[in-house]
C-alpha cells in the first residue's frame, strides 16, 4: 500500500509537469493553430539558460532561475512568434509543423555542440531528504515539485477563468473573429499566449531538471508526453490538458511498476489510440463543428 502511495505521489509530480507543458501546447494550438513540435525542446533549453547564468555570470540559483525564465520568455515566446510563427502562419499548418521539427533539431544540436553532450547536474529547489507521512516515505524533492506545479497550474486556471485578461484570451482562442468584433486586441492576446507558454515551459524545466539532469535529449520524451496529454484531455480546452497531463503521469508511473518497464513508453500511446478511436474530442473536449 505504501509503495502504491509513493507511486501515486511521484506519478502526480510527473503528471503536474506534463500538465504544465501540455497546457502551453494546447493554448498555442487554440490561439494560433501552431502545433509546436519543439515543445519538448522548449522545456529542455531553459535549464541551460539557468546553467549559463550560474556558471558564466556567477549568479546565485534563485536569480539565475528568474533570468532563465525571462530569457525563455523573450526567446521562446516573443522571438519564436515573431521570427518563426508569424511569417509562416499564412502558408497553413504544414510548413509550420516542418519548421518546428527543424527548430527542435536545431535547439538539440545547439545545446550539444555549444554546451555539452553530457547530462548536467542542476541545483534543486529544496535539499534532498526524505519525509515520512503516514508511514510512507516521500522524497522532499518530488513533493516540492508537486506543490509548485500545482500552484502554477492553479494560478493559471484562476487567471484564465476569473480575470478579465484571461477571459479575453479564452475568447480569442475560441473565436478570434467574434473576439475582434467585441473589441479584443487579438494580436496582443496571441502574443500573451506565446509568453505564457514559454514561461510554463521554463518553470517545468527548472522543476524537472534536478531530477532528470539537464541533457540535450530531454525534450524527446517530454514533447511526446505533452502531445499525448493534450489530446487525451481534449485539444480545445486548457482544462483538458491539465487533466490529461496528471492522468498520464500517474498512469506512466503505475504501469512502469505493475505492468512492464520495457513497454512503459507504450502505455500512453495506446491510451492515445483508444481515445482517438472512441472519444476523438478528448476527455474534456467539446465536439467541434465544421462550417461550410
Amino acid at each position, binding site marked *: 500500500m505504501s509503495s502504491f502511495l509513493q507511486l501515486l505521489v511521484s506519478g502526480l509530480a510527473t503528471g503536474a509537469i506534463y500538465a504544465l507543458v501540455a497546457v502551453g501546447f494546447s493554448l498555442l494550438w487554440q490561439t494560433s493553430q501552431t502545433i509546436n513540435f519543439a515543445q519538448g525542446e522548449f522545456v529542455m533549453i531553459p535549464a541551460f539558460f539557468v546553467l549559463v547564468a550560474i556558471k558564466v555570470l556567477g549568479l546565485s540559483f534563485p536569480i539565475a532561475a528568474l533570468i532563465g525564465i525571462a530569457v525563455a520568455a523573450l526567446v521562446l515566446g516573443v522571438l519564436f512568434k515573431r521570427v518563426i510563427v508569424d511569417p509562416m502562419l499564412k502558408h497553413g499548418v504544414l510548413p509550420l509543423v516542418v519548421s518546428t521539427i*527543424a527548430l527542435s533539431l536545431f535547439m538539440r544540436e545547439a545545446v550539444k555542440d555549444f554546451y555539452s553532450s553530457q547530462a548536467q547536474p542542476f541545483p534543486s529547489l529544496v535539499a534532498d531528504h526524505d519525509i515520512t507521512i503516514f508511514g510512507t516515505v516521500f522524497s522532499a524533492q518530488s513533493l516540492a515539485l508537486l506543490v509548485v506545479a500545482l500552484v502554477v497550474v492553479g494560478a493559471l486556471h484562476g487567471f484564465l477563468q476569473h480575470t478579465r485578461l484571461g477571459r479575453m484570451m479564452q475568447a480569442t482562442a475560441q473565436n478570434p473573429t467574434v473576439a475582434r468584433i467585441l473589441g479584443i486586441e487579438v494580436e496582443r492576446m496571441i502574443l500573451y499566449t506565446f509568453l505564457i507558454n514559454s514561461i510554463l515551459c521554463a518553470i517545468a524545466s527548472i522543476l524537472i531538471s534536478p531530477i532528470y539532469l539537464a541533457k540535450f535529449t530531454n525534450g524527446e520524451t517530454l514533447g511526446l508526453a505533452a502531445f499525448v496529454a493534450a489530446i487525451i484531455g481534449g485539444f480545445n480546452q486548457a482544462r483538458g490538458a491539465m487533466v490529461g497531463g496528471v492522468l498520464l503521469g500517474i498512469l506512466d508511473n503505475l504501469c512502469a511498476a505493475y505492468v512492464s518497464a*520495457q513497454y512503459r513508453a507504450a502505455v500512453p500511446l495506446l491510451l492515445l489510440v483508444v481515445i482517438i478511436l472512441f472519444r476523438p474530442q478528448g476527455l474534456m473536449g467539446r465536439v467541434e463543428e465544421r462550417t*461550410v
Partner: protein
Amino acid sequence: MKRVHPLALIGGVIVAAFLLSAPMFLKSYGIYLLALWAVTTIAALGLNLTLGYAGQISLAQGAFVGLGAYTTALMTGAGVPYFVAFLASGVLTFAIGWCLGYPALRVQHHFLAFVTLAFSTLLFLLMRNEQWLTNGIYGINDIRRPTVFGISTNKNTEFYYFALSMLVAFAFIKWWMIRSPWGRAFIALRENPLRAASLGVNVRRYTLMAFAIGSAFAGFAGALYAPLVQFIEPNSFQLTYSLKLLLMVLVGGAGYFLGPFMGALIDLLLPEWLRFTQGYYLLIYSALVVTLMAFCPTGVLGIVERIREARISRAASAARAAQAPSATSSN
C-alpha cells in the same frame, strides 16, 4: 497536357545518362550512396502521396520502412525467396497502414499525425524488446542480397542497377496513379476537401487509400533497404528517420512529382558536402530548413517554379509594354 520545356528534356536526358553511367566513374562508396538515394526516394515518393497529394501528415514513414526491412530480413533469413518477401513487405505495410488510418481519418484535424507518431514509437519498442524475433538492439546481420534474373547483386554496382530500376518502376506507378481519375481525386482532396466531397468523392476512402499506398511504398523501400545495407537495427527506424523523410519531401517540394527525388538527394549529399563542418552539420541543416520554410514553404522546387513564373510574367509585361505605344498612338 503541358508541353515539356526543351530545357527540362535536356536536363532529364543528362540526369538519366548520369545515373546509368555513374558506376563507371564512381567508387564503390559513391555507388552505394546512389543506391541508398534510390531506395530513400521510393519511401519519400510514398510519403509525398500521403502528404503532397492527400494532404495528411504521416510521422511513421520511417517506421514503415523499418517494418518492410525487418519483414524482408526475417523472411529471407528463414529461406523464403526474396521476391516473395519483397511482396509480403509491401502487402503487410499496406494492411497496417489501412488499419492505422481507418480510425484516425474518422475525425478532422491532423489526427493521423498523432496516430502515426504513436505507431512509430510502438514499433520501435517492439523491435527493441521482442528479442526472440528481432534480436533486439543487436539487430540482424548478414542479410543476403537477392539474385535478379540470374544476376547476383552481391556487388554494389549490380544492386545499384536493381534499386534504380525499382525506383523507375515505382516512380512510373506513382506517375500513372496521379494522372488517373483516382489521382485527380487525391489532388481535389488536397485543394478543397469540402468541394471534393460535394462532388461525390468519398473523402475518407481516398485519403485512406493514399495513406495506405504511401505506406506500402515505404514497405517496398524497406525491402530494398535491408539487402542494401545488410545490417538492420531498431535505432535506424526511430522517429528521427520518419521526421527526416518528412523534411525530405517538404524540402524538395511537397506535391511536386520531382520533389522527393530532390529532397532525398539533398538529404544524402549535404552531409557529404558539409563534412568540413564536422559536428555542426545537423545544426546548419536544421537552420537551413527553417529559413527555407520561412521564405519558400513549397520547397526547393517551389523556388524554381517561382523563378519561372516571374520570368513568364516579366515576358508577358514586356509584351504588353511593346504593344502599349501602338495602342496610345491610335488614340
